[in-house]
């Protein structure tokens, strides 16, 4: 079943600047005509209107902050939205300047039905402070028209959608001025009236284009949509309304970029181990901050958290005017995927390890981002029979490389009943009087020229159960205690 959803992001550009909420009036200007195209609530309150010339707007509201719309940046913003939408659909089509089509029908099973799906999207956008109009439709155009009028309802059923469509007023439809005038002259004020006219008639009386549009709306002819192709690499930038003077200010635009990044990583089934943040200042050069991750990551909350920690460690050289996010060290997420889909016999243990692995690496990344590299050391079992060499520490980065290359040797937990508390260095002692268990003989370690020959026993020293050994010269040592 195919079903279409249209997401319409009103005032996309304005919202990208985080200008929707502040108290000061903000307006976005058309690049050619110096007219207002987008504006926020305070500006509106002061009487500024859409399509108003800049001069009039400034007359009404001298404190109006304006930005000129950059078409290319607007296009990029829509792309970022499309990348984010990649979480929800595999077929996405951009509809510049502010709309996205998602093919939804095939995804519903995955998300547990249309209302759940709808809700997830709505929730996501709310959390990210993106106002959105959502609508579904049996044809792409139906979805779009309903979205523009913000009259969507989570259904694909034609008979439920039709009344809503019919109720749309002519003003709410994206028609050209000429079409609108021609229809008004025919005495048509709503879509219901329009749809009642014979199509051929419309072709004659208005124009062929409208006729075709209506055919597409009904689904009589196909509506070709260009699919959005995920770019091979990720590099997106964000602009700021005001210069960012403190590192804390970076987080908001950065989060917007991370949404796109996570969508990108999701669609490509990749994870990253390095984020590269480039800050543009009024004076060159740009600042380049590299955030290294201890293990590959792809989840939005984790990445946001990591950036938060990393930002705390940074200092702004000068106020930033814009920022760009790139990623490097991409790695495939194949293992995690096989986890979900290909859980086969024999891999059970590995699988549970993997599951435990996920939160662990999250923690590791967080720790790594807060501490200096040498402050964070991982334990690594070596499998060596000698207690002194049974494990060693390594930096987190080294650890993740090593554990990617080899499966860590599992520690022989049953290895001769080693106690939990092993002394870093054995300490000499007198021959114990009460041996409880043993001997366990260790005679190994020739490969690094520090071989040992010892007989280990469990012995009572006073009232403590100790792990003692006798070396090949007959000297006794304590090497640990049992709890």
């Amino acid at each position, binding site marked *: 079943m195919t079903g279409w959803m249209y997401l319409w992001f009103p005032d996309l550009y304005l919202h990208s600047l985080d200008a929707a909420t502040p108290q000061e009036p903000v307006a976005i200007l058309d690049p050619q005509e110096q007219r207002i195209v987008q504006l926020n609530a305070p500006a509106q309150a002061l009487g500024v209107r859409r399509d108003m010339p800049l001069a009039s707007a400034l007359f009404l509201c001298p404190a109006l902050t304006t930005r000129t719309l950059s078409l290319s940046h607007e296009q990029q913003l829509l792309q970022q939205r499309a990348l984010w939408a990649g979480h929800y659909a595999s077929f996405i089509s951009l509809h510049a300047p502010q709309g996205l089509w998602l093919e939804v029908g095939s995804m519903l099973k995955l998300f547990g039905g249309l209302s759940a799906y709808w809700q997830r999207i709505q929730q996501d956008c709310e959390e990210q402070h993106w106002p959105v109009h959502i609508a579904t439709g049996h044809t792409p155009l139906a979805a779009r028209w309903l979205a523009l009028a913000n009259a969507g309802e989570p259904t694909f059923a034609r008979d439920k959608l039709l009344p809503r469509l019919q109720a749309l007023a002519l003003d709410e439809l994206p028609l050209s001025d000429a079409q609108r005038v021609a229809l008004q002259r025919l005495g048509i004020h709503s879509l219901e009236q329009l749809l009642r006219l014979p199509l051929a008639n419309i072709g004659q009386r208005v124009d062929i284009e409208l006729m075709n549009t209506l055919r597409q709306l009904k689904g009589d002819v196909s509506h070709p949509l260009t699919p959005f192709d995920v770019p091979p690499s990720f590099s997106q930038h964000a602009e700021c309304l005001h210069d960012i003077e403190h590192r804390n200010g970076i987080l908001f635009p950065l989060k917007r970029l991370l949404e796109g990044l996570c969508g990108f990583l999701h669609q490509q089934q990749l994870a990253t181990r390095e984020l590269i943040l480039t800050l543009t200042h009024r004076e060159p050069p740009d600042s380049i901050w590299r955030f290294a991750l201890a293990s590959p990551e792809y989840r939005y909350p984790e990445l946001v958290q990591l950036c938060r920690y990393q930002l705390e460690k940074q200092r702004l050289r000068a106020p930033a005017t814009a920022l760009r996010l790139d990623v490097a060290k991409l790695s495939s997420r194949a293992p995690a995927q096989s986890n979900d889909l290909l859980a086969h016999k024999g891999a059970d243990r590995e699988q549970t390890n993997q599951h435990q692995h996920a939160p662990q690496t999250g923690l590791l990344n967080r720790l790594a981002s807060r501490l200096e590299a040498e402050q964070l050391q991982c334990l690594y079992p070596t499998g*060596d029979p000698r207690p002194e060499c049974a494990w060693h520490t390594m930096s987190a980065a080294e650890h993740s490389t090593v554990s990617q290359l080899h499966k860590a*040797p599992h520690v022989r937990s049953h290895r001769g009943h080693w106690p939990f508390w092993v002394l870093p260095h054995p300490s000499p002692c007198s021959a114990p009087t009460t041996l409880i268990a043993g*001997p*366990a*003989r*260790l005679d*190994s370690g*020739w490969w690094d*020229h520090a071989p040992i020959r010892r*007989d280990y026993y469990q012995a009572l020293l006073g009232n403590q159960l100790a792990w003692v050994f006798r070396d090949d010269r007959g000297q006794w040592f304590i090497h640990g205690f049992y709890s």
Partner: protein
Amino acid sequence: MNYAELHCLSNFTFLRGASHPEELVQRAAELGYQALAITDECSLSGVVCAHREITEHALSLKLIIGSEFRDDTGVYVLIAPDRQAYAELSQLISRARRAAPKGEYCFDPAGLLDLTGCLLLWQPSPSGFEAWHKALTKAFTGRLWLLAERTLDEHDAQTFLPIQPWAKTSGLPVVAAGNVHMHLPQRQKLQDCLTSIRLNRPVTDIREHLFCNAERHLRSERKLKRLYPSDWLAETLRIAERCQFSLDELSYLYPTDSVPSGHTPAGYLRKLVEQGQAIRFPGGTPKAIQATIEKELALIALKKYEHYFVTLYDIVQFARRQNILCQGRGSAANSVVCYCLFLTEVNPQEVQLLFERFISEERHEPPDIDIDFESQRREEVMQYIYQRYGRDRAALAATVIRYRPRSALRDVAKSLGLSSSEQEQLVSKYAGRYLGKEWMDHVLPADGPALTRTLRELTTSLLGFPRHLSQHVGGFVIAEGALADLVPLENASMADRTVIQWDKEDLETLGLMKVDILSLGMMTAIRRSLNHLGMQISDVPREDPATYKMLQKADSVGVFQVESRAQMNMLPRLKPACYYDLVVQVSIVRPGPIHGDMVHPYLKRRNGQEAPDYPLEGLRPILERTHGVPLFQEQVIAFAMVAADFTAAEADQLRRSMASWRKKGHMHKLQTRLRDNMLKNGFDDAYIQRIQRQLEGFGEYGFPESHAASFALLVYLTAWLKCHHPGVFLAALLNSQPMGFYSPSQLINDARHHQVVIHPVDVNHSHWDHEALDDGSVRLGFRLVNGFNREASERLEQQRP
């Protein structure tokens, strides 16, 4: 000492066992063990070595034959107390091996339940005990023990400690053993190294897989008494007492299929020889020859070798029927009997019988006859043998692939974590040198840094370790009954090939018959030439002066054996003028005579520049044919008997040890004896050293006179063809490629020099094969065209006008 070790792996459990079977039995005898069971994992490959060592050194140690099997239900050690149980065990191993790819085996405890003779020592895993103890107790009433092995490491908790409670639950007796992997604890390093080679990762990467102590060695009595209760130790002796089987009991029966019913083997053989005589000596058999035949037949009858000869006769008859050319060689091949049975074409009238010896009465080993077949058609002969005797009665002998310097260096270096470029560097230090025993000093000096010393130590012990079993080039073992009753069979890497678990030497030790079905590319070329000329080998005129004249000019490109640079160098100096000169020619350019500096003295004496001298009068009959210079392996052996007072058995040992002299130490004993005795008999030191070097040279590429005689015949035949029918011979050579020393272009060039007209490949006239035309010219065939195949060629030939 009151102990018998019943669970001991040798290094024939590849990459687990860290001691040779010989070392294990020596050490066990030294410690005073009553008995030692060699129980390699699903294999009996090591038992013959152990058996031989015990016999040769008359050790007072009983050898027990057994085998270990492992799966996740535990470790199973099966022991064969008698001949019937041995057959059972051998069959079981064969089944397990045959069901798995080469080098692996399939084991299921359920397969044990119908064994009626074998004793079972069982070290169950906890789940295995629950699952199987009832069934096994029932199937092995009075033949099942729980195997208690204390290794003083983390495994004890799993395998040793539960034994006592299990014994109580099940009422089974317990027996102690050592899970022996090596003869001395010092071998643990090597054992770790083998583990790392097995897992193909450096030692430091697989530390969790290493044994954490060296307890898996043959322990002393004091130690055993401290570790095990005395009744568990005593139980080992009770089990050893029940084991009465010895490998000597394996009475091998020759296949009798080839003797028709109603004939005695001796009568039938005589009949065949008489039939052959009529063809071979149409003018009646000369008296001397008749006497030799009688003598040979009597010896064959005495040693009961009739079936062997009849079997060979049968195989050769098949080849003759199929028009597959073949030629026998080997110690027994150049006898009159073999000539009459068509095993060889070497006419005893032409060559005086080289030695009286062809099967010596003292030697307790089967006669050795190798038969060379045309390489392109040998498979037919093999298939015939399989088909005639059946797959369960015929199998190829194994060749034990052992660590040689290069492979040992590489594997040890890898396991010590050297990078691949460092490994390469190390191996290249060795490569291409013949440094003698001192090569190790050049590659890894004893006074080097610690890593070098470790490398040296491990490489030295790893040298000569068996690595895997491979199939022998053509040695077939054929038995009267099921072969798997005698020796386990396993899969070879080639599909549909089975090999037995013993090699040539093992077969010799136990007196099993082996038929060597070898392949020789030149035989194909000869057969093609003769077919073209419509001749038989016997039709070729002998002692043709023109042929010898050609050889004396070193004009020998394409001629069998004497076409190499070294041989071409020798031809004008030796100037062969008769058949026997060719025998000398093929044997002289060999490591033996060269290392022994025997070449120049021989040439000088032959050319009359120096008088032959015989250090002892007794040596004259041995050395006369070669002007007083020992050239052949047989001569050196006979020489040892006369000049160094070796007994026949000792001399025989010398001969055999030459073949395996790389197992160090072995040769040394005999060398010292040879030297002492020769000194005593008045030889000077320089001469003795030359003889010894020659012996070492033979060790690498032994080439006895009997082989040389057979090869010389092929040399003569190919030289004759080249001399009189160069075109036919060239076409045959080209059609038999790849073979020989020279590339097709070199062969063609050489033929052009001999005025052979060569027609290029012609789409209208060529065939797939090269073709000798009636006018002596040669038309090249399509097989020279790159990327062209036989089918296309045939289609083309059919379609053209």
